[in-house]
């Protein structure tokens, strides 16, 4: 079976700085893969390469067997990859519900003239987008429900913004979800909740998930497979236990001297 996502020999550099070197990575359909590594390891750059924000210097990226290198980010999203941002890039001045509805752009087709005249296709699509947004927001229990639908996104708390980012990515109807540090800035209770949520995303949403995460409890709780990056190079891959005890990983996180502390 061909993997859903496959990177082969991907390299990326900013000027003279090599950020990703000759990286091979694959994610199978239905899998949850975590990417870990210290700050500056190239994890977010990896996401930017997959989503077309950056173009790789060399190597190929295949999604469902087809190369997506050179496609614009919106085209890649339409192929079935949606992401969240580590730095939270919501549409702050739009309402919570509109944020989710906006992401349905790629798989709807009414032209602006149809929308202006409220022609049948525009009305039908609008209804469907509404239902889709409500369904995606309901996925988060009461967190993003009720009056919050009509509040501007900037009024949300930090944790709720992270949830909204996920809901927005879901509304693009992807097969592969890229989650960039979904638990960053969350308290322990919320972190626990996010761990369960990611599991539910696969079970109920049917998404394949590639996730960057620093919180090892989350990584341990969700991952089928863990990939560790350091300075743009894959230094370990395997189950959580195997990677977490891998010498090179411990070294990358803690330095050479302290290989005895886990």
């Amino acid at each position, binding site marked *: 079976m061909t993997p859903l996502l496959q990177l082969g020999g991907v390299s990326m550099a900013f000027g003279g700085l090599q950020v990703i070197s000759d990286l091979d990575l694959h994610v199978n359909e239905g899998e949850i893969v975590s990417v870990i590594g210290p700050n500056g390891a190239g994890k977010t750059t990896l996401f930017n390469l997959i989503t077309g924000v950056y173009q790789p210097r060399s190597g190929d990226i295949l999604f469902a067997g087809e190369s997506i290198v050179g496609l614009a980010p919106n085209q890649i999203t339409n192929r079935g990859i949606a992401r969240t941002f580590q730095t939270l890039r919501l549409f702050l*001045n739009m309402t919570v519900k509109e944020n989710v509805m906006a992401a349905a752009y790629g798989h709807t087709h009414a032209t602006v003239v149809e*929308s202006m005249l409220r022609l049948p296709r525009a009305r039908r699509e609008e209804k469907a987008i509404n239902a889709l947004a409500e369904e995606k927001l309901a996925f988060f229990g009461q967190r993003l429900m*009720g009056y919050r639908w009509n509040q501007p996104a900037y009024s949300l708390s930090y944790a709720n913004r992270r949830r909204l980012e996920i809901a927005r990515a879901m509304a693009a109807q992807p097969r592969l979800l890229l989650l960039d540090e979904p638990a960053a800035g969350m308290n322990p209770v919320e972190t626990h909740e996010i761990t369960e949520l990611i599991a539910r995303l696969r079970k109920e949403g049917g998404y394949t998930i590639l996730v960057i995460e620093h919180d090892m409890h989350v990584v341990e709780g969700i991952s089928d497979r863990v990939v560790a990056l350091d300075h743009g190079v894959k230094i370990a891959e395997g189950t959580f236990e195997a990677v977490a005890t891998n010498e090179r990983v411990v070294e990358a996180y803690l330095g050479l001297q302290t290989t005895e502390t886990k």
Partner: protein
Amino acid sequence: MSDSTPIVDAPVHDPEIGADEWVSRSGDRTTRRGGLIGRAEHELMRLPGTIRFFAFFGLLALIPVMTSDDYLIRIGTVTLVFALLALGLNVSVGYAGLLDLGYIAYYGIGAYGYAMLASSKFGVHWQAWAAIPTVVGATVVIGFLLALPSRRLSGDYLAIVTLFFGQIFYTLAVQGYKVSLLGLNKDLGLHSANWDVTGGPNGIANVDGFRIGSTTAITDHAYYYITLAAVVLVFAALHFANNSRTGRAWRALNDDTLAAQVMSMRINWLKMLAIGVGAGVGALAGTINGALLQGAFPDDYNTYVLITIYAVLILGGAGSLSGAVLGAIVVTVGLEALRPGTEFSDWTANGRGLFYVTILIVVLTMMRPWRRVLAVLGGTVVFGILLHVIIGAAWPRGVHGGILNSASTFDHGGSMGWAIRHWLVLPAGTFQTGGYTVFNYLVVLLIAMILGLTLLKGWMRDALLVPTIWLAAEVYEARLIEEGSGATRFLLLGAGLIVIMAKRPQGLLGKPRVEIV
């Protein structure tokens, strides 16, 4: 709910799906403005949008029925044309956040396009149903073409490029009376080596009114209703567009272009679409203006008009359709109301009345508590009377001036005039005949004092406010009013807009925007 009721005894609501206790009571926590105005506002906002929409435009439709004054109808039409222009500009500036300074070109192309298709300029006299869609459609295409090279630009860069497009249009319109087709004019069957296309600085005159069949719209009433219909239709269409996938995408790329693109939006196409749709609305306004003025003249489509359209939109609140309409009303009607009709008997319809009433309203609404209001107003009255007495003792001629009246002469101006003459220092023959250039310097002093007000706080500010208000009235009566229909009303309108924008940076009906939280 009364404060004494403990929460545990609160009536149990039917459990709503997805709403906990805190969520379901969010309405109770929103702060509301008190008093009669707050109550009226609340009740008004509870009405469905459709009802407010039809009530408001229905009211506008009644204006020609209530008055037969052609002058008022004319102002109404100009207001509606500006409303239409602001609605169009709102698509690129308000929704998509593209600072399109070339917008004036689309307005001009609309007017010139209609003028060329329906006048004796080229001997073609198209009917309205053919000319308007042709011109609007062509302008949308031009909008797309102009957006094509600039679609990757944003912010300041886009502003510079589009400003350039606007200037190109103006230059073409002014210079377009001597078009040379590679020097082959005569070989191509033209009579002159300089082919006159736009009429140059004189523009195109004797343009037909809108004609359908054998009926031609000529009356002011007709154009009022035509423009009103255009505003209503465009308003509704843009409202629907704003709440569609395209409108949400426009607003999304305004907030975060990269995130919008990653969320599947075709941002370059959407930018071009925003400029194209705006161009179409601008051209529609242009055709109406061309038919209304029965001509297309370059100076109606220059940068000054562009700035007015921006003032309308920003004052009303970029991003808000009703704001665009309200902004047009405030700016256009405001400019007319500031003309110095100087009859004291009619305080509502003259600039002088507006001047004093506005100052009074601003002091009354912005100052708390009442003691301060009384102290400042009382202080201003006493300050003026004292100054009048002191200067009058030293220089008797200095307080023997009259009040400028509607016949542009000076008289005593009735009882209100009496009060003003004994409060201010108006020298005989006030400005023109007396030649007191000192008042020019007092204008400068007034501006300095207003700037000073922004630097001070507390009682010092109140203390400075007293001579400032007095000086404003002094400068107005002794100097500004003489040029009331010229520079003064623009000056006063500008000052008013600054005050409003300082108080409400998001515009009258705009929502406050957040860039980064």
